[in-house]
């Protein structure tokens, strides 16, 4: 079973600060997705990255896929309280299934 490690596990920062969370694996992904989950809800897809070195932006969120397709990062600029949630990366290894990371629980303090 492939494992995805996310770091940090918990992150609490002030509104307006920048932050980066990471997703790492020892295996090569075919593609990688980032999801956000709010309390009492299921995860919702934010982005899919496919190509090594790919960078995608979603407003204040920047997603990067490592050149070797073994890691990914999510950078948030000028964090807002609405960014609070659990961020999950999920890697696909060439079949119909996703393997989810352990998650980063982000809290933005007003």
């Amino acid at each position, binding site marked *: *079973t492939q494992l*995805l490690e*996310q770091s940090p*596990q918990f992150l609490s920062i002030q509104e307006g600060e920048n932050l980066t969370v990471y997703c790492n694996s020892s295996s090569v*992904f*075919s*593609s*990688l*997705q980032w999801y956000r989950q709010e309390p*009492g*809800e*299921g*995860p*919702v*897809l934010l982005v*899919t990255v*496919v190509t090594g070195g790919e960078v995608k932006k979603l407003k204040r969120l920047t997603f990067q896929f490592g050149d070797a397709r073994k890691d990914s990062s999510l950078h948030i600029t000028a964090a807002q309280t609405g960014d609070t949630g659990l961020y*999950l990366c*999920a*890697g*696909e290894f060439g*079949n*119909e*299934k*996703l*393997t*989810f*990371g*352990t*998650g980063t629980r982000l809290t933005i303090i007003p």
Partner: protein
Amino acid sequence: DVKVTQSSRYLVKRTGEKVFLECVQDMDHENMFWYRQDPGLGLRLIYFSYDVKMKEKGDIPEGYSVSREKKERFSLILESASTNQTSMYLCASKTQGAGGLYEQYFGPGTRLTVT
């Protein structure tokens, strides 16, 4: 809007009971999944299904079974509930195709407590 619904948001059962968790999706998706979510462990795949009456084991199938008699409905069954099955259970569906290129749509989850 894609909708995945789960039969219960909260459920409390006793050890040894048979438990049914139901999931329904309205997007005619071929693939459906059951995960459990525990703090620090992320989402772990229990079972998934590619089509009606088709099922495959995920990473942690022990103690669980599934049923898919209709395309829109995927049921998770705990034959004899145990306290270590206390968890959040999430159902998801997606259209068929390379796993990472299509979004998985999740239900709101069922928080199951086994006492």
